């Protein structure tokens, strides 16, 4: 028994356990997502996070000790963000053809997303770290977390905000477009990708390839534009 205990203590101090647990939780969550045929409520990221968080709490493991191993997965976010240039390049022709409409509506939507979220939480008494953490919530997670980290927010909190935004956006986008008469597939895709990144885009892609393409384009561009604008908003609003 004490041998097992020593092994447990040893594993807790090294990276192996955290890394293995992260990959296993991800596979379990992906399997569940397949089984439910990608239902709107089934988000493998959220499920993997819940599984691991429960595991940490149940085993009394600290986040720092878990992150010891998980940091190797997190490190790949940097190169993955750079790699977003490849799908963006594939959309370059589309961007060039509709450059001004895309830039104007995306910048407006991106600014509205960040500023309205910041103003509402500030008005309702949230502290500065929360206001900063919520600013990039419409951006795809790797970029949003980078922005949050650089500006003094809490990246973990930002990751949760991004997820909630994406799930909500994915659920509401199509009914809202129908209600308001936003029928242009290009406009739908751009709006979904700008307001609620990949999760809304994935939903729109089921309806139309055009919407999916414009959603993908909006995810990348919104990441760039938000990264440029949010530091200014923070200077002005806080």
């Amino acid at each position, binding site marked *: 028994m004490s041998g097992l205990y020593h092994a447990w203590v040893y594993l807790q101090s090294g990276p192996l356990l955290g890394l293995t647990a992260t990959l296993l939780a991800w596979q379990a969550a992906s399997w569940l997502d397949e089984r439910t045929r990608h239902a709107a409520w089934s988000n493998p990221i959220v499920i993997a996070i819940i599984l*691991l968080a429960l595991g940490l709490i149940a085993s009394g493991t600290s986040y720092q000790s878990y992150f010891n191993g998980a*940091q190797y997965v997190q490190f790949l976010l940097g190169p993955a963000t750079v790699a977003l240039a490849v799908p963006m390049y594939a959309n370059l022709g589309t961007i060039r053809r509709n450059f001004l409409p895309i830039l104007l509506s995306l910048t407006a939507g991106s600014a*509205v997303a960040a500023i309205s979220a910041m103003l509402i939480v500030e008005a309702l008494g949230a502290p500065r*770290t929360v206001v900063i953490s919520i600013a990039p919530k419409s951006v795809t997670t*790797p970029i949003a977390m980078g922005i949050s980290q650089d500006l003094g927010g809490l990246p973990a909190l930002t990751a*949760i905000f991004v997820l909630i935004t994406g799930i909500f956006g994915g659920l*509401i986008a199509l009914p809202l477009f129908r209600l308001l008469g936003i029928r242009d597939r290009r406009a739908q895709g751009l709006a979904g990708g700008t307001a609620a990144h990949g999760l809304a885009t994935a939903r729109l892609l089921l309806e139309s390839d055009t919407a999916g393409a414009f959603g993908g384009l909006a995810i990348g561009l919104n*990441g760039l534009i938000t990264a440029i604008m949010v530091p200014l908003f923070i200077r002005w609003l806080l």
Partner: protein
Amino acid sequence: MVQALSLLLICQLLGTVIARASGVPIPGPVFGLILLMILLIIRRGPDPGLSTTAQALLRHLGLLFVPAGVGIVNELDVLRTNALALAVALPISTLLALVVTGFGMQFLLRGER
């Protein structure tokens, strides 16, 4: 694969140097993305190795932000104390962004096709 990964890391490295040296508060990888984009425009597209590596990384993009998300275990108090503010801000801001971008784009594209 190794070559493509090196290229991605070099872009990220240069991007981080630019971000730190210039003091511009944009994440280094975002500058890296712009650098790679410029390179792709000059080279007229990615080579097959880069395409494959980028696809492999992006296919499991979700996995890469699980570790930070688990950090929620340290932020449960923050979530609890600000639950109301968040429950109002997240849906409303998302709704507004959908409406502004959607209407804006549809209006600016009117008359086309």
